[in-house]
C-alpha cells in the first residue's frame, strides 16, 4: 500500500496547473528570477505562446538576445495587449524566470514595464503566463 500512497502523494504535489504544450516548470527555474533591462528588438504575438525578444546584458555584462516567453494571443488579447502595444526600440524592463539549461537566454515573463509611458503587464490579477 505504501507504493500506492507514494503515487497519490506525487499526484498531489504535481497539482500545479499548467496548460502549455510544454511544461513551464520543467523549462524554467521557478525558484529564480532575473531582471532584464534593455531594448526590445522583436515582439512576436502568436500561438501557442508569444515572445518578446530583447537585447540585454547577461550576468557577465555581455549583451545577449533574450527570448522571453509570454502568453498566447487569446490570453494577451483579453488583457489588453495588442500587436502594436510594443514597438521595436522600446526600452523595457522585464522580470522573468530563467531557463533551467545553462547557456540559454530564454526566460518566462513575470512582468514587463515600459518606463516611457508606464505600460505594465504582470502586476494585475490574472497577468501570469498560462
Amino acid at each position, binding site marked *: 500500500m505504501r507504493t500506492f500512497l507514494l503515487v497519490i502523494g506525487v499526484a498531489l504535489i504535481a497539482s*500545479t496547473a499548467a496548460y502549455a504544450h*510544454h511544461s513551464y516548470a520543467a523549462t524554467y527555474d521557478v525558484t529564480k528570477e532575473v531582471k532584464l533591462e534593455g531594448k526590445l528588438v522583436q515582439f512576436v504575438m502568436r500561438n501557442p505562446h508569444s515572445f518578446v525578444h530583447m537585447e540585454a546584458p547577461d550576468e557577465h555584462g555581455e549583451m545577449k538576445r*533574450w*527570448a522571453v516567453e509570454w502568453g498566447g494571443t487569446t490570453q494577451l488579447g483579453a488583457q489588453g495587449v495588442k500587436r502594436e502595444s510594443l514597438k521595436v526600440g522600446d526600452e523595457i524592463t522585464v522580470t522573468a524566470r530563467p531557463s533551467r539549461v545553462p547557456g540559454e537566454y530564454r526566460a518566462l515573463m513575470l512582468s514587463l514595464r515600459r518606463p516611457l509611458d508606464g505600460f505594465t503587464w504582470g502586476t494585475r490579477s490574472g497577468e501570469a503566463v498560462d
Partner: protein
Amino acid sequence: MKNVLLAVLAVIVFAGVRGSAQPARPAIAPDIAGEWRLDNNEQDTTAQPPLGDYLGIPFNDAGRMRSDTTAESIWGTPEYQCRPHSAPHQWRGLGGARILKEQDPLTRNVSVYHIQFMRSLDRPVFMDGRPHPPAYAPHTWTGFSTGEWVGNTLKITTTHLKDGYLKRGGPQTSDMLTMTEYLTRHDEILTIVTVTDDPIYLDEPYVESTTYTYDTTSTVATETCNASSFAENGGTDRHWVPHFLPGQNTALGEWLKTSEWIPVEPTRGGVKTIYPEYRATLNGGAVKVADLKVPSSKSANDVAKRLAESSPRDGEVHILPLQGNIYMAVANGTNLTVSIGADGILLVDTGDAKMSDKILASVGQLASAVLANPTANQCFGANCPGKWGWSSPYIGAVISAPAPARPLRYIINTSAAPERVGGNERIATTGFFPRGSQFGGAVENVGPRASVIAHEEVLNRMSAPAGKASPMPTASWPTDTYFDEFHKLPEYVNGEAVIVYHAPNATTDGDSFVFFRHSEVIAAGNLFSTVSYPVIEVDKGGTIDGVIGGLNKILDIAVAEYRAQGGTWIVPGRGRLSDTADVAAYRNMVTMIRDRVKDLKRKGMTLAQVKAAKPTMDFDGRYGSTTGAWTTDMFVEAVYSSIQEKK
C-alpha cells in the same frame, strides 16, 4: 486506490483480449463516435509530474539517462515548436477528444475512425483490415493505427510512431515504441487503457488508463501553431540543442526537498519499483532490491528485427514513391534516390556493385511504369492536332509497343563510400549524357555514359595521380566534380532544380547531400541514418562537428508541412524515410553525445576512460552495435579523436 483499480481493470482487459472466448466482433459494435470530455480525475491529466519523478514507470537505465539529460527546452528548437503531444500522452492532453467515423457506403461498416485532440493531428484508425506499412516507411506523431473489435472493446494497434514522451516534462520514449489501446464504452463513460511498449527505454510495457465522458457540449478546439523559424531558446544560434550533461541536471530532486518522506529510489522508476513486492525492500526491509523477483511482463516488440526490416539486406530492391518526381529505392539495405521524368533518370548513389543489375532492372521497370504507362486513347481525329493517326503515342500503347523511357542522365555520388559508388561503373555505362565536339553526340573516349557528379574529394579518393595505382577503376570515377559550397546542376532535371550541397568534413571530406527543389526531397547520403550512429571515417577527413554541421544544413533547407512533420522528405543513407523532426532527433542525439565526450575529454579522460563512462548509453539500444563493421566503440573513438576545441 484508484490506481489499483485501474491496474486491475487493465489486467481484466488484457485477459479478455488474450483469451479467444469472445467473438472477434460484436453483432452491433458500440458506437464510440462523438464528443468526449476528459475526466480530470486521474494523475497528471491537468499537470505534469515534477522533473525527475519517474514513479510507476518501468524505466531501464537508458530510459532514465535519456530523460535526465533531455531538457524540456527542446520544445524551443525551430523543428519542435509545433510538435503535437506524443501519442502515449495524447489521451491525457487537455481539451477533450472528438471521434469521427467514416462508413463504407455499401456495407455501412465503419471503415475508419478519426480521433482528434486539441493538440494533435487527425489520427485515422483503419478498420478495413489494411496492413501496416513496411518498416522503411516514415514514422509520424500519430503513427499508423489499425483497429479491431474484441468483444465490446476496440483494440487499436499503432506502429510507426516518432520519439517523444510518456508524460510532459520528462519521461522520454524512443521511436521504436508501439502502442496498443483498448477503448471500452460503458454507457456514457469511455475507458482507454494504453499500453506503451518501448523496449529501448522500458523493461516492460507501461500501462495507464484514462476516462472520458460523452458530452455533446464538448468542443475540441484547434490550437493553432504559427511558430516561426527563430529559436525560442534565446541567443542567436538557431542550431542550439538544449540538454543536460549526465549528472548535471540539478532540478531532478527539487520536488523531493519538500517531500522528504518519499524514498528516492522508486522515484527513479524501474520495473521492480512498480510491483507491490517492492514494499518488502522499504524501511530497511529484509529483501534487497537486487534479489527481488517481480512478475514483470516482457516486451513483444523486437527492435532488432524492426531495425533490420527498415533497412532490409535481402538482396532485393524495394521502391517507395515519395513526391513529385522522386522515389526512394532500398537496395539491399542502402537507400538510393531516383528522379524519373521527361528528361530521363537521375540516380543519387549507385549502391553495392553486386546490386547493379537489380537496381537497373527495378529503376527501368519503374521508369516504364511512370513514363510509358499504357492508357486508353483520349484524343481523336481532328480534335487531337499533331497526335492523331498512326504516329499517335496511344497507338503504341494499343499495340503494346510504347516508346522506351528516357535513359539515365545523371548519377550523383554523395560520398566515396563503397555503397555510394559501388555501382558507378556498371550503371553509368547504361546512361547517356551528351558531351563533346559533335554537338550532342557522345565522345568515344568518354563513351555513351551518364554524367557522374560528386565533390572533388570523392574523385580524389577513387583515383590516383598518373603512375600510381588507382583504388577504383577509371570507369567508376565521377566525370563532373565540384569544389564549392554547392553545385547547381546546369539546367532543370525533370522540371526542377537539383542542387548538390557539400557537407565539409562530415563522414568524410567529400560528403554531399542533394536537394530536389520542386519535389521537396533531400537525399542525405551517409550524413543521416535511422539505423546506426554516423559512420565517421576520421582517416578520410570525417569529423563529428562536420556531421552535425551537415545535419544542421539539411534542417536549414527542409520545411515541415504541418505540425512538425511531413513536408520535405529526407532519404537517409540507411533506414526509414524521414522528415525534419527525424533529422532533428538524430541531430540532437549526435550533438548530445558530442558534448558529453567533449566534456569528458576536457576533464582529461583518456579514450578508454571515456568509453568506460558510457556517454552513448541511452542511445545504444537504438543506434549502437557491439558487432559488425561499425560498432559503438568505433563511433565513440571517432567522436573523441575528431572533436575540435575552439581556440
